[in-house]
């Protein structure tokens, strides 16, 4: 939760600076942020490759477990595609790009800003933060209405870090490994799906 507050803090700080027009508009042009974005993707890749445990726990998963991230991805994209019919300002692909953040708000909103502008980027940031908050707060209800896997699916990419404690608490210890491998797989799909739906 502290991490989320810091993230929102930087965003709000940016808004204040932008409102005051303290920094001239040309400063840190879009080209630079594109390269920074590439560097970021590279670094994310390095940490994934560097972490032995991460890849090992992926290899250990059995086929049943793979249906959980699949359910998350299909369910999220389907739900978001339906909602997009209520939002004429955005195309279905743009709405699906927002949904493809799966709660990974920092990375997805940065990508979407780069490809689609700050308005959709702001939606992505808010929407994915909301998703994490819902996963944190609604887990007991999700468990009762939709079974033990629902807290994991709703948590999306955060099921391996911020929401893992609450998932463990409610779904049970047997589901920890599922939650972690689910988080890793969904996390990995975020950059690919977001760029895909931005370029459609």
């Amino acid at each position, binding site marked *: 939760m502290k991490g989320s507050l810091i993230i929102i803090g930087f965003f709000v700080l940016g808004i204040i600076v*932008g409102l005051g027009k303290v920094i001239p508009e040309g400063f840190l042009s879009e080209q630079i942020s594109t390269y920074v974005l590439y560097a970021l993707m590279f*670094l994310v890749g390095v940490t994934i490759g560097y972490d032995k445990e991460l890849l090992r726990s992926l290899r250990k998963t059995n086929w049943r477990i793979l249906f959980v991230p699949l359910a998350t991805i299909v369910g999220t994209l389907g739900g978001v*595609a*339906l909602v*997009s019919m209520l939002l004429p300002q955005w195309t279905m692909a743009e709405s699906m790009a927002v949904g493809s953040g799966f709660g990974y708000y920092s990375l997805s909103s*940065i990508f979407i800003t780069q490809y689609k502008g700050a308005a959709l*980027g702001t939606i992505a940031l*808010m929407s994915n933060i909301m998703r994490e908050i819902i996963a944190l707060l609604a887990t007991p209800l999700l468990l009762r209405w939709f079974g033990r896997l629902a807290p994991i699916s709703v948590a999306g990419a955060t099921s391996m870090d911020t929401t893992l404690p609450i998932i463990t608490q409610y779904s049970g210890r047997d589901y920890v490994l599922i939650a972690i491998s689910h988080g890793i797989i969904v996390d990995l799909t975020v950059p690919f799906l977001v760029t895909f739906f931005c370029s459609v």
Partner: protein
Amino acid sequence: MLFGVGVGILLRSTPKLKHTGKVIMVVIYALLFLLGKEAGEDDRIMSSLDTLGVQALLLTLGAVVGSALCAKLVYNLFFKKHEG
């Protein structure tokens, strides 16, 4: 990113990389700051922050309900019978 994964695997023996996580966080903070700055400079975004919020909430609800329903399906199909 896949290139980065390869480099990360090759670099496993070097302990220096412990700090990449922190570097990533700093870069993310910087980029989110820039997103905020861009949004703050854009009067259209600032004046429609409430409608953007409503749209974000609707999309989130779609994502949450959709993924919960699919999770229920997978749970009933593959997980339920394995429990006592």
